């Protein structure tokens, strides 16, 4: 188990961070959230195609980078830190992982993966963002005998940016994953708690669809949810680290009572505790990414549940401390702290709450319920 960052991972972080510093300053993020263009498509093109982030998880022979969850985790730390308005999680992690769980030797699957990896298309997996690994296969969409989809999926992340939807649906032959052109579905963006990760309700009315061959579609879906839950922990670490750094920075220069406010012991101790929480969450998130990369399913599931049960609360706590310790300015729309609080709180619900991940751990670690 390697819990550190490799040189390659450090270089990747630097590259992503440089682009974000240049293209994604706080004013730009803030300026976009209430517009009709919630995603920065130019930035996404740059990250997805030129830096190759869209294909990180895709093997080289399918047109991707052949990297692993470890690298994707590093990217998510940086994207989380900047709350960058790009559909990396929805497309390059969630939808891509689901496709990787299908039969990748099949031409349809391989072609779609290649387009995603090249940044030519963006996809979303049609599940509620609050869906957790281990849940039963969803039944809200059904395929008819001609393979047309009808039904509705609520709270889908990054669907608004997607060209292609990967849709779990019940069909004549049982559960399956279907490819649907986003243009053939009604994607209605609604006002979401997290302003930087738009959510949509997606409705299908006899939408033309193509079944994606998969030996076990339910396992493909569950694996994608597990991978994404594990990698979300790294996004949460990125959010938490930003909150800690900003707050420490603010308190080092803010004076009250003739002193630097950061010198008051009650605040020093709160920040030391928060630092420890972030350090711990980082260790848990690294363990999850490393276990996902290593591929042992049981170890990965255990590490993901531990990371999610930890990092969710850490990000929320860090963001809440950031708001409180900034005082009045932390309460303003203008200051970027609220974007992290909203992201952190939404992330706590995303892909399973901490309590749900603890419950999922129960059989894995032989601590049965009462």
């Amino acid at each position, binding site marked *: 188990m390697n819990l550190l960052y490799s040189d390659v991972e450090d270089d990747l972080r630097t590259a992503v961070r440089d682009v974000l510093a240049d293209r994604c300053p706080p004013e730009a993020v803030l300026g976009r959230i209430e517009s009709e263009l919630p995603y920065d498509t130019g930035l996404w093109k740059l990250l997805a195609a030129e830096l190759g982030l869209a294909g990180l998880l895709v093997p080289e022979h399918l047109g991707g980078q052949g990297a692993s969850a470890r690298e994707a985790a590093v990217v998510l730390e940086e994207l989380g830190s900047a709350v960058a308005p790009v559909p990396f999680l929805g497309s390059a992690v969630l939808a891509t992982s689901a496709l990787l769980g299908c039969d990748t030797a099949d031409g349809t699957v391989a072609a779609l993966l290649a387009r995603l990896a090249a940044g030519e298309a963006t996809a979303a997996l049609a599940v509620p963002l609050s869906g957790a690994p281990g849940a039963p296969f969803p039944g809200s969409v059904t395929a008819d005998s001609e393979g047309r989809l009808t039904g509705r999926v609520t709270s889908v992340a990054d669907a608004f940016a997607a060209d292609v939807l990967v849709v779990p649906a019940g069909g004549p032959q049982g559960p399956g994953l279907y490819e649907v052109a986003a243009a053939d579905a009604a994607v209605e963006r609604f006002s979401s708690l997290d302003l930087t990760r738009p959510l949509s309700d997606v409705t299908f009315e006899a939408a033309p669809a193509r079944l994606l061959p998969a030996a076990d579609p339910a396992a493909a879906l569950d694996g994608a949810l597990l991978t994404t839950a594990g990698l979300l922990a790294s996004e949460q670490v990125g959010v938490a680290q930003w909150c800690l750094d900003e707050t420490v920075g603010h308190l080092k220069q803010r004076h009250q009572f003739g002193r630097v406010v950061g010198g008051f012991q009650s605040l020093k101790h709160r920040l030391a505790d928060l630092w420890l929480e972030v350090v711990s969450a980082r260790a848990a998130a690294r363990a999850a990414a490393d276990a996902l990369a290593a591929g042992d399913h049981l170890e990965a599931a255990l590490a993901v549940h531990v990371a999610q*049960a930890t990092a969710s609360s850490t990000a929320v706590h860090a963001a809440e401390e950031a708001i409180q310790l900034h005082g009045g300015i932390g309460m303003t729309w203008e200051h970027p702290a609220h974007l992290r609080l909203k992201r952190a709180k939404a992330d706590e619900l995303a892909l399973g709450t901490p309590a749900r991940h603890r419950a999922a*751990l129960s059989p894995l670690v032989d601590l049965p319920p009462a």
Partner: protein
Amino acid sequence: MAESHPTPGKDPDASEVRRRVAELLAAYDPARVPREKFLRARFDAGLAWVHFPEGLGGLGAPRALQAVVDAELAAAGAPDNDPRRIGIGLGMAAPTILRYGTEEQKRRFLRPLWTGEEVWCQLFSEPGAGSDLAGLRTRAVREPDSGDWIVDGQKVWTSSAHLARWAILIARTDPDVPKHQGITYFLCDMTDPGVEVRPLRQITGEAEFNEVFLTGVRIPDAHRLGAIGDGWRVAQATLMNERVAIGGMALPREGGMIGPLAAAWRERPELRTPELHDRVLSAWVAAEVVRLSAERVRQQMAAGAPGPEGSGLKLAFARLNQHVSGLEVELMGEEGLRYGDWTMVRPESVDFYGRDAGYRYLRAKGNSIEGGTSEILRNIIAERVLGLPAEPRTDKDVAWKDLPR
């Protein structure tokens, strides 16, 4: 020009280490050779602490290879050095002696320290100097003729002093300079007639620690560690290592106090309630995360010395132990009302696991006090990791003798 490239393949790797273990086992069959003899041979083979230099029990190899050695030797049924009995020597005295000791001191002290033939204790805290350790009053005065140091004072909370052959000691050698500057670090012979050790009974009933009275104790200058007046800096190395030693042990999953809690949950279905279930799972997650954090710090410092991150580990370890042991008493229900044994004894070593939940709960209270309190550790993290302003202080530029008492 001198050739500066390192010889390729010179650093011992896992296979080289395995070869040496096999050699040791071939020459000293653990089933026949007496324990002490085997441990000495292991030290001399460089397999005691592989990251130490050659000739001092190590091979100058990466720290991570120690796990290979330990596993191979354990599998061969070799005796270990009972690290719980000699934790202060291994975790604190040894790294400090290695860093600041003379060649002679290293050769004299490290081998019997590691084999456990000589137990060490730590004479730092005093009745008037705990968190503010640099305020200590124990005096060491140099005798002009002999050059020896004569030490007078009182130390307190000294764990294992009743077992110890040697002590790491800090004492004031110059009261006329500010407190941090006038301290010198010594290696003190606990059999000196001026050393008196009295047990101090603790919260659990027994006496792990002691008070130690030092009256005219004679320490040769050859047992001074580091320069005169440089004791505070030397002591920092001890304290950093102490925190890592307390919080940074490599544990298997469920290796710490979570072990008995999880076992009780599994074996005693009648104790389970739905509400306790989520709390037990939370505790399990917290324990696993502390384990991973410690593992990560170990990986970070595989090359270097422990930094302030070690303070974080110790803080996390204390909180976890107190939380988990408290939950364990609660889970035990009526049984939690009983306490195994309050008899005053002076234990040979500290064993968290051989006793009941109540003992663990009480002993864990010390985890946030010993080795720097959790409040002091938070100050250290805030100042040295986060760069926040230091605590306001009035004693920095004042000669120690002029400080208000």
